[in-house]
């Protein structure tokens, strides 16, 4: 049993270690990008970049009891002040700002609002909104509607009840004005009972990864794919520069050489990612998880899958140039769909399903789970999936690889 394939492997690893350009691209670059993405998108991940406060202008043409209740007790309550900022402007200024997208909404309370309500007459509240801010405008509308329900409910109760009583001839139409005040009083006391309550409960949010963690995994895996591609490329390059043919005329058989090259690729990728893990945990304080077996398992499976895909691409390319283009395209698409560049959680459901077709989709999902201190169990199925994935590509690739 000759161990020549090991020598081939180590030769490739050494070449890689001496190739400064490769080192920059495959190790320095992900580290720089993780830094940029981590600080730029940090707030987005931690939820600190919550939507900015809803900007609202209230124009009170009534200045009565009910309008004050709406403004002071509702909109300026401590609870709502956290999410709504009430500004002081006149109607036309407000409408102008809304059109420009600088203000979310305007609430106009008409004159005689309070007096009409107290007399049991109907009235209205007018909300003007920015079409580009449906959620924030919706919040304002919800609050105003809720208030309108509270105030208007009494009128509906009285009117419906009267309708029924009149129809059954318990009350004649002439008696209505006399009966109404009593009904209103009953309705008010009913409303005050508030028998339907909302019980608010807070739940602790489950552990989430921060931006640095997510992109350490995302970018780490994306560049691991590039590393694997670079390794497989060496097979092609040697084929092109004929050194491969020369190697084959040596006593070392094809299988050993191929095995050596593949192991070399595997080792290079493994080392690349390990360096990313070490650097990010030391310098960026990225927590990769408490389960080392889990991390090693998924890493090995990912490297295997990446190598398989890389061999496949090398096999279907005729020249190094073609391989280059195919690799860029393949890795970039996988990176985009699998969630290396944009967080997978932010994407529509069909993309999340599609990400299962990508190497980095499985890898990132597993790494982020491990990062929240899950045990190695979460890595088992994804690792098996990636092994299978890599095997399929690998077999097709080797079969097609022509020397």
């Amino acid at each position, binding site marked *: 049993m000759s161990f020549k394939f090991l020598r081939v492997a180590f030769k490739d690893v050494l070449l890689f270690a001496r190739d400064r*350009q490769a080192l920059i691209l495959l190790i320095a670059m992900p580290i720089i990008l993780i830094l940029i993405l981590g600080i730029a998108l940090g707030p987005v991940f931690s939820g600190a*970049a919550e939507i900015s406060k809803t900007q609202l202008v209230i124009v009170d043409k009534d200045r009565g009891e009910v309008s004050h209740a709406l403004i002071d007790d509702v909109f300026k309550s401590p609870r709502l002040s956290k999410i709504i900022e009430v500004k002081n402007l006149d109607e036309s200024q407000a409408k102008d700002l809304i059109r420009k997208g600088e203000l979310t909404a305007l609430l106009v309370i008409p004159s005689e609002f309070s007096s009409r309500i107290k007399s049991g007459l109907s009235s209205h509240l007018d909300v003007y909104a920015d079409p580009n801010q449906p959620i924030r405008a919706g919040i304002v509308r*919800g609050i105003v509607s809720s208030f309108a329900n509270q105030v208007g409910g009494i*009128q509906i109760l009285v009117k419906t009840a009267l309708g*029924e009583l009149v129809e059954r001839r*318990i009350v004649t139409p002439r008696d209505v004005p006399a009966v109404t005040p009593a009904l209103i009083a009953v309705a008010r006391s009913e409303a005050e009972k508030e028998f339907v309550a909302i*019980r608010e409960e807070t739940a602790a*949010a489950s552990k989430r990864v921060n931006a640095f963690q997510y992109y350490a995994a995302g970018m780490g895996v994306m560049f691991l794919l590039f590393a694997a591609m670079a390794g497989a490329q060496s097979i092609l390059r040697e084929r092109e520069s004929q050194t491969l043919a020369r190697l084959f005329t040596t006593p070392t058989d094809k299988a050993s050489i191929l095995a050596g090259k593949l192991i070399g690729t595997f080792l290079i990728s493994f080392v690349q990612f390990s360096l990313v893990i070490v650097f990010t945990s030391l310098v960026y304080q990225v927590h990769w998880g408490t389960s080392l077996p889990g991390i090693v398992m998924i890493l090995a499976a990912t490297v295997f899958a990446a190598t398989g895909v890389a061999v496949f691409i090398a096999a279907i390319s005729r020249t190094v140039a073609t391989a280059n283009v195919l690799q860029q395209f393949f890795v970039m698409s996988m990176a985009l769909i699998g969630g290396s560049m944009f967080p997978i959680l932010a994407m529509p459901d069909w993309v999340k399903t599609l990400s299962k077709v990508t190497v980095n989709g499985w890898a990132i999902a597993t790494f982020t789970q491990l990062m929240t201190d899950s045990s190695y169990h979460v890595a088992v199925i994804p690792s098996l999936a990636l092994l299978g994935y890599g095997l399929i590509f690998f077999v097709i690739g080797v079969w097609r690889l022509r020397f």
Partner: protein
Amino acid sequence: MMRKIFTIALYGLKQLSRERGVIVLILGLPLIFTFLVGFLFGGGGENRIKVSFVDKDKSSYSRLLRSDIENEKALKIESSSQSKAVLAVKEGRSAAAIVIPEDFGTHLIKGERIEVRFLSTPQATTYSAAVKEILSGSLTRLSFDASTARLTTRELQTRGLLASAELSNEQSRIFERADKAWKPRPIEVNYDILKASQVRGKQTLASGMAQGSMGFTMLFVMMALVIGARGILEERKVGTLGRLLTTPTSKLAVLSGKILQLFLQGVVQTTILILFGRFVFGVEWGNSVAGVIILMGAFILASTGLGIMFSALVRTPAQMEALGTITVISMSMLGGAWWPIEIVPRYLQIAAKLIPTGWVMDGLTNMIVRGMGVQAAILPALVLLGFALLFFAVGLAFLRL
């Protein structure tokens, strides 16, 4: 002399157009990225608030509550089991969970105390407060309907006009009658959407498609120019530059020719990507044609300068590729090409003004998304010309042909 410069430039471009792989990369990739990002992040701005709804009652009353809440377009209601709902809230997939208890309907009609559970996390305050208001409004409506039914039937019963057997039917009927009376409401809430003006303020963010088209056009044009400048290094390596220089053509002419080649390459690539952006993706590049031309022209110059500067500072084409790739991608990210700059921390937004890409994105966003005219391009273009001057100066000082 001018003719020699042009010849050199056009010759270089012809060589380039023959490399099919290059065309795929500098045109295909940006278009695919723009399309995917536009598709994934759709209409830009806001998505609907997701709410988990757990109905343990399944009566007509709980269903009525649900449909009333669903009317609010800002929400997206999803039915689920309690355990799934709790998990969704904890993991941040739902802003809140509403749990309707068993016997909600029967207690409602009888006027007996009901508790509707509302679950949220501290992280989702903004959205959960909104959901709670909407829930509260709907519950108010239903409790008034129930009170109406109860009071009326009680009155009828005391007068002996209602048999006990008919009680619940009558209550349902009156409940429904009361519920229908909410249209039109006593206090009608009029909701008017004011038509957006053409010129929007700084609060308006780009939609996914616009962001992608602007950002990736900028990124890939810059990449092609910076990497493309390695052509100078390659020719130096292979020696053709030396051969060109042994002809009566002066060094200056050769260099100018190469620079012109890069500039023309940039113009062609930019034009194609903008046209695609406008006519295939529907992005409003045409809002200020003059502005876009001025801004992108200055940008192409600055990028070419950057490429020349790099080619003067490194020794091999491979080094150039590595340095160029890292620089361009980092600058594009920091400048706001991959995501709207408005979502990053304040200090990063300021830092974006220190690099050319930050100015390009700012100018483009103002013209394309916010509808500002050509004046939005003037300051950024001047800054970019400044960058171009700096890059060319350093590059030409250090370039050894």
